[in-house]
């Protein structure tokens, strides 16, 4: 993976985001949301830039980023695959779906395929319990899954 190089344009974007929240430390989580929305993830130089704008210790920002599972410091795949691990999905076999995905994509949970196309993560309940077990690829929800259906679903995105 190439290292994220921050340029002046990035810095301007971050500055604008921080300013839109009044450069307030108490708005850090909103700022991180917005920044991640823009960059797709929160690499080190981006966090440093936020620290400079908010005039707060970088360690504290990293402390927040590393606390919340929504924030990530690694870029996701073009099609992020998320498996719902809510209880309803669990009792209806979400673990087997994870296994099938790991096998199909040849990556472990948390990983990204070599071509950067897919990344695989687990998430908490997405609230589509009626369709359990459920996965999300990008914004699309696929429900009532069985392990053998995974291959065809992934194929659609290739």
């Amino acid at each position: 993976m190439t290292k994220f190089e921050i340029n002046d344009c990035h810095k301007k974007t971050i500055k604008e985001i921080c300013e839109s929240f009044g450069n307030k430390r108490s708005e850090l989580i909103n700022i991180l949301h917005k920044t991640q929305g823009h960059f797709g993830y929160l690499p080190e130089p981006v966090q440093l830039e936020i620290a400079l704008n908010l005039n707060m210790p970088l360690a504290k920002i990293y402390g927040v980023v590393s606390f919340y599972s929504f924030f990530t410091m690694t870029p996701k795949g073009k099609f992020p695959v998320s498996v719902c691990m809510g209880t309803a999905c669990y009792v209806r076999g979400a673990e087997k779906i994870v296994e099938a995905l790991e096998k199909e994509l040849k990556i472990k949970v948390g990983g990204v395929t070599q071509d950067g196309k897919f990344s695989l993560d687990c998430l908490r309940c997405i609230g589509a319990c009626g369709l359990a077990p459920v996965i999300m690829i990008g914004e699309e929800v696929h429900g009532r899954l069985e392990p053998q259906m995974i291959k065809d679903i992934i194929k659609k995105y290739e």
Partner: protein
Amino acid sequence: MYKMQLLVCSGTGCRASASATIVEKLNESLKAHQLTEEAQVVTTGCFGFCEKGPIVKVIPDNTFYTQVKPEDAEEIVTEHILKGRKVSRLLYEDPENKEHIIDSKHMGFYQKQMRIALRNCGVIDPENIDEYIVRDGYSALAQVVTDLTPEQAIDMVKQSGLRGRGGAGFPTGLKWEITSKFSSDQKYVVCNADEGDPGAFMDRSILEGDPNSIIEAMAICGYCIGATKGLVYIRAEYPLAIKRLEIAIGQAREYGLLGNNIFGSKFSFDMELRYGAGAFVCGEETALIASMEGKRGEPRVKPPFPAESGYMHKPTNVNNVETFANVPVIFLKGPEWYSAIGTEKSKGTKVFALAGKINNVGLIEVPMGITLREIIYEIGGGIKNGKNFKAVQTGGPSGGCLTEAHLDTPIDFDSLVAAGSMMGSGGMIVMDEDDCMVSIAKFYLEFIVEESCGKCTPCRIGNKRMLEILEKITQGKGSMEDLDHLRNLAYVIKDTSLCGLGQSSPNPVLSTLENFYDEYVAHVKDKRCFAKQCKAMAKYTINPDVCTGCTICARNCPVDAITGEKREPHFIHQEICTHCGVCYQKCKFNAINVE
């Protein structure tokens, strides 16, 4: 004037199955048949019957179409709207007698329900404030700010007996009263919409289906406690709820229902959204407040309670979505009406997210005091695939597992605690004979270990140790001593953890230890898993009478533990077998036995 309306669920679940396309197709079809004057398509919030989504409900005859596909739209219009013939193949089928049910009023799923918090979900268009107003929306707020003093209003909430729906069931009126007594230049009303229990989604449904009820209730609360600012802490994973809430706030502002001098009174109130970022512990109010302040969502020692020192060290009242959703109704119908529903100490209704091995998965709202049996068999339509009921888990990771013995216990805050579980936010997961209770306990602990904030020792390390013991047990390596350690750890974690999450985290373990001790013992002593879920303990053998010698098992075995000649019965070498279960999955003749 429309003679008919087609209500299409646009909750997250149904949208996932293309309900938006259904709306499109229905509209196209109505247009094609020149019925746009007669019938109207309305997108609503969740009907709760997620199992069979997407749902299209036709009114006024309450026809309830389930699992509708976009291509069914044409038939619904031509048959039902045009010719008045219901499309029977899309009607809900009774799981027992396989009969089609003609309308929702005849569905067991709805018959036992009483919808207060969900009163508008599936009825109104959540993106149109007018529809909320027609359903008496904002009348409660008008009444409160123009006719009542804050004390009077708080008294009504107290009289209603409403208790917090987020978990512990603290009396809402009392909470408001305490916050109202602290004087400060600024106070805050916070709505906890960081619903995190895996398998619970009632808050999301309310926000998606009836966002205005939350705005109204928060404004009422603001008037009562003397706050002019409301904050909704909402999960970032709920984009639709966020969007609908933003629309509703915008519309309320345009009508002047938020802003300065509401209803011409001296009371002013406005709202903002704060996003959660994926931390279950932020459901705990002090952690939630820390998170809203831009910090790590770690709980702190109470007192001081948020009522005294909360968001930005100002007095803060935190209630969850469902609690707020009840508030306007209390004022509309009166506290006496409200307190007549439910049990002695738990008034009103409770929304449960019914899931698991049950026929009718979905969101239900029932009066407190209903029994589990009524919920599971009458509303839920019984256990899926005719299996045997084993347990029901309530309260999410903080709750416990209830058994057959509890089926006839009236459910309320206190009876659930007495039974070793808790109301929690209202997740209700049904398990059948195929579920291993040790694995279920392990599942919840995995969740807790993942979600523990790491601040206090018992939760940070203790839960990890409990999980390790459970892993040991499910791998067939446990000892009876481990069970003692497990129990001691569970009690100490419960007794010493800093916040509610930690204090309740051992509940799944304790309640399964209590109710399914023999299952633990079987894992430990006999190395057996009744439900055959613990792979490490399964013994796979081939039934020579059934085996055709097709060799598919031998070819797929990753460790070459299966041998045999073509067209001859095969054999599994137990000393090599790793219990992976591939042979069992691959065999087309059911020749593999699992013990």
